[in-house]
């Protein structure tokens, strides 16, 4: 049974430096989730700055931030269902690690997207396994002993015994997600793509929510259906505007597609990749410095116009 932690008390709001120092330890299993939208890049960068080692990283779409953490030597094991730079190309460091063990090997657990979704579901729901109609006939189970089979206790329509594949739970030591806003207790609201973030938080021993904005309690409570993660599941709230760059935050800033395209060339050259890390991660004290270094002119290029949701009426007793 997981430990009982004080997740309802105040005092959850902290800096990214404090959050990483408190909740990420060498050897930990760290989940960073966000499917194209709201990728917790700033969290990955702070893990690099603090020099964590021997991490197992769990992330459905291992993309730029994972390639950067690999290059910084933080990661020895990766659990993922997609390893690529979106549709923009390859991850140079990841390919060197897997194809040539250069500069060191990378243990890789390969799943499909729904396999990862189901691992998070099992982790969040404290289930020993989660069944899914994938993998029948695939070579993946032959290279991933985590993927197994169960026989259903209910006969199939034709009366025969029915088999189905299952995946095991994943329970990260800590999960980081990025969100548009939260209150100081950790009630977290996300709109646009919500991905697997809620399950990744519930599956974890500790959860850190990185937000564009800390908002007053009243803002959250005006629209409780917008809360994707309730306070009781959150251990820390980090305010970090533009912390999802180069991915996007719906309604806040757009995706930096130019950087995605540039990354394939940067990461293809290990020297250039390490120079990039020197300049943009080790060379910036924190994400605010990274944001400032990019400059207001740059951010103006990612600005978005307004498209309001309209309001619904929750009603009040008269």
């Amino acid at each position, binding site marked *: *049974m997981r430990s*009982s932690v004080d997740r309802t008390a105040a005092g959850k709001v902290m800096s990214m430096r404090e959050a990483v120092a408190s909740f990420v330890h060498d050897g930990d299993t760290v989940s960073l989730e966000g499917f194209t939208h709201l990728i917790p890049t700033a969290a990955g960068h702070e893990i690099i700055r603090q020099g964590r080692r021997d991490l197992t990283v769990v992330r459905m779409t291992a993309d730029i931030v994972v390639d950067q953490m690999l290059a910084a030597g933080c990661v020895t094991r990766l659990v993922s269902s997609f390893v690529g730079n979106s549709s923009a190309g390859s991850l140079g460091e990841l390919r060197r690690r897997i194809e040539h063990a250069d500069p060191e090997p990378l243990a890789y657990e390969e799943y499909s997207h729904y396999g990862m979704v189901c691992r998070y*579901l099992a982790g969040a729901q*404290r289930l020993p396994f989660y069944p899914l109609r994938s993998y029948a006939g695939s070579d993946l189970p032959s290279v991933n002993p985590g993927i197994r089979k169960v026989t259903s206790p209910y006969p199939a329509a034709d009366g025969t015994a029915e088999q189905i594949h299952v995946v095991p739970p994943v329970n990260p030591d800590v999960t980081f997600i990025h969100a548009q806003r939260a209150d100081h207790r950790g009630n977290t609201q996300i709109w646009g793509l919500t991905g697997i973030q809620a399950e990744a938080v519930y599956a974890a021993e500790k959860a850190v929510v990185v937000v564009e904005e800390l908002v007053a309690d009243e803002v959250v409570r005006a629209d*409780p259906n917008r809360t994707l993660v309730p*306070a009781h599941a959150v251990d820390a709230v980090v305010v970090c505007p533009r912390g999802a760059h180069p991915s996007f935050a719906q309604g806040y800033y757009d995706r930096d597609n130019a950087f995605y395209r540039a990354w394939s060339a940067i990461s293809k050259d290990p020297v250039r990749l390490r120079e990039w890390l020197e300049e943009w991660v080790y060379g910036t004290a924190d994400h605010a410095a990274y944001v400032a270094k990019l400059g207001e002119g740059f951010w103006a290029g990612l600005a978005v116009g307004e498209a309001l949701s309209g309001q619904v009426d929750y009603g009040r007793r008269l």
Partner: protein
Amino acid sequence: MSEERTRVAGAVTSSELLSVVAARELVGRRTVFAGIGLPTLAAELAHLTVAPEIEVVYESGVCGAHPSHLPETIADAVLITGAEAVLTMAALFGSVLQGGHIDVGFLGAAQIDRWGNLNTSVIGEWERPSVRLPGSGGAVEVMANAREVFVVMRRHTPRSFAEELDFCTTPGPDRALADGIRPLGTGVTRVITELGILARDGVGDELRLVAVHPGVTVEQVRAATGWELKVADTVTTVEPPTGAELRLLRDDVDPDRVYLR
């Protein structure tokens, strides 16, 4: 006897007494899964007294409710407006409850046995019962997944505190173990009744009498219990509700007397 006790405790009603006693037991707990009625009163009173950080999670999916009026059901509209989060039932039961985020679950029952197993299904045979009761609702899940369970039983009689349940809807961890499955929670740790408090520490333990209300004797409780009740070495007398507790309960928690009757 119930009337006698009420006199002893002053003008305190049975509802008030049970609410106050249950609230005190919530000291140090944080997330409480509560149905409507006495558990709601207890959790609200605990919030104002011994457990300021308490969060009540409702079976309907509401977390962090800030109701304008005392709710009349676990899904009352006043629980939603102004709440911190509303979850689907799949998330509430799957991630929150089965996920292990509930410290204390409150349950009631028509029958309880010495191990804290509960019957809310039938009196008589299941197939053709003499009384069909509502059934589990989420009780099976609360017992299986909350760290501990508090049971509030207004009536303490040999029929409701039964040597043998007519039907076990909601099993405690001892029955789970016998079924070959390792339980996740402790099961029932407190039973609060009109006569006193029974307690139980965990797997293998029977409920035992640990406290009686003022004016109630150990013998009275034994006589009202359908099995041979174990009694703690020291049985304390429950401190009657204080003036401060009663004022909070009557003036702040339930001023409209929705439950305090």
